């Protein structure tokens, strides 16, 4: 459960445009995501894809 998202994260990072990748490591702000979306080259939720959880966490 902990490994899978990490693998996806690395894959996504490698395949992401460099300008976008530079933002990695920062919390994605809505502003950045909206700006990214405007040119429609890649998904505004690319960062979220890097974090896809396989299951909900229950408590």
């Amino acid at each position, binding site marked *: *459960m902990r490994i899978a998202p990490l693998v996806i994260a690395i894959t996504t990072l490698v395949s992401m445009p460099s300008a976008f990748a530079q933002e990695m490591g920062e919390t994605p702000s809505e502003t950045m995501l909206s700006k990214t979306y405007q040119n429609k080259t890649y998904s505004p939720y690319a960062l979220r894809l890097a*974090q896809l959880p396989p299951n909900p*966490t229950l408590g």
Partner: protein
Amino acid sequence: MHTNLSTDAGLAGNRLSPATAYRFARGEEVTSSFGHPARLSRPLDWLVIADHSDGISMIGDMLAGDPDVMAFEQAAKWSKGMTEGGQAAIDTKNDLVKTFSAGKVEPHLVAMYSPGSRKFKRVWEGVIADAEDYNEPGRFSTLIGFEWTALVNGNNLHRVVIMRDGPMRASQVVPMTTTPPQGSPDPRDLWKWMKNYEEKTGGEILAIPHNGNLSNGIMFPLAERWDGFKLDEAYATDRARYEPLYETTQVKGDGESHPYLSPDDEFADFELWDLGNLDGTEVKTNNMLAGEYAREGLKRGLAIEGRLGANPYKFGLIGSTDSHTSLATAGEDNFFGKNSVDEPSPERMSYALKKVGGTPLNSWQNSASGLTAVWATENTREAIFDAMLRKEVYATTGPRMTVRLFGGWDFEPQDINSRLLARIGYEKGVPMGSDLRRRPEGASAPSFLVYALRDPVGANLDRVQIVKGWLDKDGKTHEKVYDVAWSGERSLEKDGKLPSVGNTVDVVNATWSNTIGASELGTLWTDPDFDPAERAFYYARVLEIPTPRWTTYDAHRFGIDTPEGAPTSLQERAYSSPIWYGPQS
């Protein structure tokens, strides 16, 4: 979750510490306060212990004969009564509650358990230390928190306060209480305290209100609070910022919807506690209900946003047990009650908890609910907190079903068949808890990708519904519940209703079969009534097929009848957080 540190829990017989609560939640067997072996068949991933900050640990100290406390005549008397047990303990409990309610506890004794005292700080440091001891990032997370237990004339305004942070930041403060002069029962003062925490420590914090159903109309004010304060933009923005979630279901009743408010919703009458306020001193009237239930709160939020430009009730939906037993049990077949005196026994479902206006609130009405599911990137304090902040969470009434909801403008029918549903959901849309993206030119209506998978060892699913609320051009709010996916070969009837899924519950043997229902349900649903000029929210409600209620399990185990009036079965459910649409989206 409350432990023996909470005054009311200690009074009701809870002798289990926070450490035991953590051990139980992570899957270990423990011995309950009344001597039962207790264990979860499936551990939880995380736990928030939120003991009442007012009077925290006072009862335990009295029982232990702490000399600081025994110096007070009142405390020494109560300690003696509790230690004697039997009728003396019952009399002591009643006397203690009465004295507290009347505000007649010796002021220096109150001060000893309030901010500013060394003892209060030491207790808080113990709370933090226990959380730290049991926090195992990646396996089991413990979030540091407490309950701010405000009561206004018996009306419930409780909030669970949760920190994102560890000991370095949490130990720079002590919890806020509600008793003046050290504390305040005003939520606006709580938000000031939270703001101060964030500024002082650089940490992050949120508060989750619960049991609006026992607030007698004051949980979600529309224009004016109980004290005459008129809602303004600052109130709306502060509340939205510090209270991103609402606890929609728990042991003291379900608070999603009410039949009076939602007469067309045949599932609105679920595990209700609607006789009066929290302490039973005021009977509830119908005009109070709109200020109490989550769906109506969400609708009021749209109306206030239309008026003030900010929505105070833009909250996601979660569930909790609020157990006072240190045992986080939300399952019907493994329910350890609200208080330790309600641990499994032949007597626990056949007495009145209290009388409200002459009508008994019965012990069988305790509800074995609920859980919070968070779409966190990993099982850590920080990731769980972050998921809560962005409202990517949902409530269940106990079962562990998986629920996904995404909203967008570009989904295609085949998207629901993808095995990478979340990938498509994030790419083309937004997840639960979000605002829809700006409406593209020419887009007619938003679509919602909704998917539910049953609890792997639980019951099949009956149906998935989308609940929509909206604000019309005249400033009136409306709601509609759409059946969007269902099991079997059923068709919508002329009145738009879906026939019942049926009921396989064997009451005598307290079991059921998955011969009806579906293991998974999903669809792409497009709003047929969308008006781009109207603010709206959409959330998913997922219903299981009927299964036995905890009272039915008890009747089977103890060879007794179910109490008169208690349903023998129920349809457990999940509530997703909403997705909002605004004309500016």
